[in-house]
Every structure is written in structure tokens, then in C-alpha cells.
């Protein structure tokens, strides 16, 4: 069964070329979306999350057409690169919003918040404001909220691009752990081939504003010569020796 299915979805921003998406993602897959900047990777996630509505075509989750359903009712959580937390609310409050858009939680809800905080390694930091946390810790908090919302599909819009290499791997490991535990379907936009290779089971390459099929992630090791993917990846720099 496909967890996510885009059936001839067409979309265009004002004055920009029309985009075309037609592919599916199986339950439990980790799909890395790659492609040049401005190719429409983020728009693809916005369509899935319901922030944008396609001009035509349908978007299905577990074979149910949700093309015109509002964002809050979709089985989807999304992590942006930045601004995942409200700066004027504490970490606890930010995460609690995943349960109810109220700032005062019941005892039970509070316990739930504390347990996801512990799970992402932020126990005891719940009372702090986002500005008092590091970039990595903020993304962990956002991940904790996604966890609490318990939606089967997780969308990641370059959420770790601003972090250093070690921290990035650590975050990917955390996502992997959670993904395996809950059998999440993850779609991640990334520029980094190493991340994709490390994390993804499948890869989709957005080319000429369209993505019509996905490939196994192993293709990153050996992209077909002359293909757009191999041009995008380029060759690894040989060590320069004088």
C-alpha cells in the first residue's frame, strides 16, 4: 500500500514554470528529494502538507484523496529549516501545542510532553525559551512535537542544513530511531548527497520542475553516466597534490 501518492499533480507559482509530480512512496520508506535550488523541492512538501493546493491532480494518503483537506487534518507533520518554534513560548508550551492549542495542559498531557522531551534528549530544558537553546536542540524540540502529534508521515524541509556535520548525523540518527520505532514514512528535502546516502532508502530527483519516479538510494553510489543526477552530484574532488 502506498502511504503517499501524487497522481499527476500540477502546480505553478505566478509566472514560474509549471511543476508536475507523479510518484508514490511506500509505507515505511525514507525518501530523499534532491534537485537544484528553485527546482520545486519545497513546493512539493508544501503541497503534501496542504500549504498549497494543486491546480489539478490528486494527493492521496493511504489511498484516501486528501487533495483539498486543510493542513491540520492531514496525517502529516513537517519540520522546517528554521522557525519551527514560537519564540515567545517555552519549549514545553511549544511542544504542548502538538496536543492542544492551549497553553495550560492537563497533568496527563504534561506527562506526555515530558516523556517526548526525554526521548529527544531534552529532559529538564522544557521551561526554557527557544532562544536559550542551540540550533540542534531547537530542532530536537520540533521533532519532539512531531512525535507527540503522532502522524504517520514526516516531512523534513532541510531541517538540519544549518547544523554542523557531527550534529547533523546525530539528528539523522534520532530521526532514524523514531522512524523505525513508529514505522513512519519520511520525505526529506536535502542538498547533501552524504545525508541522502546515509539516511534514505529511496531518492527522487526533481528535474525540469517535475518528479515522475523515484529510485533506490543505492543509485547515489553509481549514478548513470550522463544523467541529470550525475551532473547534479558532480564528481568527488580528488585530493589535490602539488
Amino acid at each position, binding site marked *: 500500500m502506498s502511504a503517499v501518492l501524487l497522481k499527476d499533480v500540477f502546480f505553478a507559482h505566478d509566472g514560474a514554470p509549471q511543476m508536475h509530480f507523479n510518484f508514490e512512496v511506500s509505507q515505511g520508506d525514507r525518501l530523499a528529494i534532491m534537485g537544484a535550488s528553485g527546482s520545486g523541492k519545497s513546493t512539493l512538501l*508544501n503541497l503534501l502538507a496542504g500549504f498549497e493546493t494543486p491546480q489539478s491532480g490528486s494527493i492521496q494518503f493511504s489511498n484516501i484523496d486528501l487533495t483539498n483537506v486543510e*493542513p491540520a487534518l492531514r496525517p502529516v507533520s513537517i519540520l522546517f529549516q*528554521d522557525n519551527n518554534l514560537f519564540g515567545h513560548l517555552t519549549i514545553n508550551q511549544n511542544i504542548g501545542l502538538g496536543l492542544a492549542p*492551549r497553553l495550560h495542559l492537563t497533568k496527563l498531557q504534561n506527562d506526555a510532553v515530558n516523556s517526548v522531551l526525554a526521548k529527544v534528549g531534552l529532559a529538564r530544558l522544557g521551561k526554557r525559551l527557544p532562544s536559550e537553546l542551540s540550533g540542534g536542540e531547537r530542532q530536537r524540540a520540533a521533532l519532539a512535537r512531531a512525535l507527540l502529534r503522532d502522524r504517520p508521515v514526516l516531512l523534513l524541509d532541510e531541517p538540519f542544513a544549518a547544523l554542523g556535520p557531527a550534529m547533523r548525523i546525530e539528528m539523522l540518527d534520532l530521526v532514524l530511531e523514531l522512524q523505525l520505532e513508529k514505522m513512519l514514512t519520511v520525505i526529506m528535502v536535502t542538498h547533501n548527497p552524504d545525508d541522502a546516502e546515509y539516511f534514505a532508502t529511496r531518492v527522487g530527483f526533481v528535474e525540469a520542475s517535475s518528479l515522475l519516479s523515484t529510485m533506490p538510494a543505492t543509485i547515489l553510489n553509481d549514478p548513470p553516466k550522463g544523467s541529470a543526477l550525475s551532473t547534479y552530484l558532480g564528481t568527488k574532488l580528488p585530493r589535490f597534490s602539488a
Partner: protein
Amino acid sequence: MAFAALGFLALLAGGALLALGVAALQSPKVISTAFDSYFLRIAGFTLWQATLSTLLSILPAILVARALHRHPVFIGRSLIIRLMALPLALPALIAALGLLALLGRAGILAPFLTWGFGARWPGIYGLSGILLAHVFFNMPLATRLFLAALDAVPQDHWRLAAQLGFKPLSRFRLLEWPAIKSAMPGIALIVFLLCATSFTLVLTLGGGPQATTIEVAIYQALRFDYAPMRAVAFALVQLVFAFGLALMASRFVLVERSQNIDVSSAKLMPPSGAERLINRVLIGAAIVLIVSPMLAILMRGLQADIIKLATQNSVITATLTSLILAISASLAAFLIVVSLLSARSSAIREFAAGGGGILLSVSPIVIGAGWFIALQGIINPLKAAPVIIVAVNTMMALPFVLRALSPSWAASRARHDRLAASLGLRGFRRFRIVEGVALRAPIFAALAFGAALSLGDLGVVALFGSDSLQTLPSLLFARLGSYRSDDAAGLALLLMLLCLGLLWLADSLSQKETLR
């Protein structure tokens, strides 16, 4: 160059301050008697009307800004937002006359109000008039500032709210209100400062012992009661008070223009039918508030014999005098701004980048009173009128010219500094080849804006004006005082058209692409 510019400002403000201080120290006894029950009454009224004005401006502004933010795309929206910038640039005298033409005892709406009131409509003199005029000026300003604060909320937050399924109440509580709340102190302080130091509006609409502010009392003490010591005492109070407020206000950064047009909030969570209706009414009411006084001026002005008025010698002379003074002040402000912005010392540039906001606190009446007293023993102060008027208007226009010019100037510096240095272009030669060409549109926009601001000023002219020096606003005020209301209406129309023309020029120039 930059030091000369700073020197001019220091001399102008410092000279006035020195004169006030020396006068106060010479006769401290007389000064202390100035703080009598009369002073307490006007000080109390100043604070009271400023507080009410601030509340009445800010609360509706929040609603209107929210309404505009909820409807990011509709025909005429950008026009409405530009309209909101108009009142602050319009001469206070015009606004006062417009409101009187509309709601005065013999105003256009008076017959209807008499009918609805059940008794003869008393007109809007006094507190009610002052409040209404302050709302006319400050509500649009506050709306723009609140709107910019709402637009500054990151787009991702609206998306997040949509994904988390916020209801309208949570959206307001968790997204809109925090943005509004954090912008509030800065906006409230600016509006309070403007209302507490407003002169022309209180002079025209208030007056009388019941509705006088410190600012107007300084003028009355100097020109009518001939009580210079009282003027000194009041001016010092006003100076300390306004400076303190401006210092507080400068701690808050105000975003004035929104960077990105953010449509996601409305697209993701479209307003309900009821909210749409309420928002339309709110925006419509704001437009009526801004436009109706100007329409009233137009209607009344057209009834006057414009041709006969425009050929009167006194009118022609006053118009020319006004234009010459305004253009001089605008040019002087421009020169100062340019020398500050291109200063080599980064401290001076930072002072300039701060917007010279502190200058907003320096009231023309206080500076004028200082120089009036300083010159008194030496020459007849009225003889120095042109110089003082231009100097003080320069100072008044300065923060606005600075804000009009500094973004494009900074962009030009970032882009051309190294190239110009490598080619050895400096000083005026650089200006002629680089900024003078690349920034021609913003420069003329800033000049036109500065001239429009100076053109309608009544403050210093009221202090220093005489029969030998009439500007258009002072002539208008004199005709109003001698109950020649037809003349006043015609002159008001003339003044309004001149100012609107300059502002239109400034606006259309500033819309142009600045750097290629």
C-alpha cells in the same frame, strides 16, 4: 563636512538650551513662581489629552492593521497603505481646518448633527477636537507600524499554526497578539510623544484656559502675555519631558515597512464570512477618517473665490516666501543627512542610522523660544525670523529626510565604496559621479518630502512671524483669526494642493527602482 553638520545641530539646539538655562539661572525666583496652579492645570491637560489620544489612536489601529493583514491581496490595498502614510506628512493646520470644515459649528455635517443631536451642534472645539485631530494623525501611523509588526511574523509560523489546527482565537492569542504586544510600547511612546508635543492642532482646535498644552502656553507667554520667564520655565519642562520620552522610545526598534508580502496566513486560514464583513467595515472607516477632512477642505475651498485670492499680493508673497523657506530647509536637511551618511567616522554613521529619532523630541517651539529669548537683548527677534525658521525647519525635516534616504544610501555604499576608493573618488567628486546619478530618484524624493513637511509648518512662524514675514500657514492662520473664513478655506485648499503635489512627487519618485 560631517562635523560641520553636527556642529550646526549642536549650535541650534545648544544655543536655545543655553539661552533658556541662563535665563533660568539669572532669576530662579521668578522661574519658581511660574509653577503655579495654571501650570499644573495645563501640564495635567497635556498629559490627559496625550493619554486619551494615544489610546484612541492605538486601539482602532490594532483592529485595522489586523484587518489589513488578514486580507493581503485585494485591489487598492497598496493605495490604502500609502494613504495611511499621508496624514503625518500633511500640515497639522490643514488637518485642523479639515476637521472644522467637517464637524465645526458651521461645518458641512453640522446640520445633520444638529438634527441627530436634538440641539444646536456645538462644534468640535476643545478636547474633543484635539482628540479627533490626533487620531486622524496617529491612527494611520500606528496602523502601518502594527501591520509591519504582523508582517514580520515568519511565514513558517502561519504554516505551523495551520498544521496544528489553530482556531481563530488561538491564532490571535499565540501569533497575532504576541507580535502586536511586542510592537506596542514603541508605537505607544511615539504616538504619545507626538500628541504631547503637538502645537498647531491644539492652537487651532483648543485654546482657552480649558484646553491648552504646555507647548501652546509657551507661545502664548512669549507672544501675548509677554511673560518670558514663564516661557523659559515651561520650555525647560517640555524639553526634559520630551527628551525623556524620546529616549525611552529609542530603546524600541520600530519596523516601518514590511519586507515580504506574506499571503500565507490568509490563504491557509481564510477569514470567515463574518470576519470579512467586520474587516471591510474597519478598513472602510479608516479610509473615511483619513479622506473626509481633505474632501471637506476641497469642498469648502472650491466655494471660495480662488482666482481672486490667488491674485492677491499678500497671498502671492506668502506662497513664494513659504516655498523659498521650505526648499531652503529641505536642501539644508539634505546636505546634513548626506554628510552624516557619508561620514568616515562610523560613530557618526551609527548616530545617523539610529534615525536621528531623538530629534523628534526637540520641539520647534522650545528651540524657537530659546532663540527668541537669546536674541531679545541684542536685536528684535522678529528680524531674524527667516534664518530661525529655516534652521528649525531643517531640524524638523532631518529625521524624515534621513529615513527616506538612508536605506538606498547604505545600499549604494555597500556596492560602490570599494570601487570608488580604488578609483580615488572622494567627497563631492564621488557624489557627482556615483550617488548623484545612481540615487537621483531617492534624492529628489527626500527633497520633496522635506519641503512638504516644512511648507505647512506653523510652529516657528507663529513665534517669529510678523506683518513683514508671512508664510502661507501664518497668513491662513491670521485670516482664520479675523473670521475671514472664506479666504481661509481657499488658502487651505491652496496649501493642501501644494503639499499633496510635493508628497505625490516624493512618493512616485521613491517607487522607482533605485539601484540597478
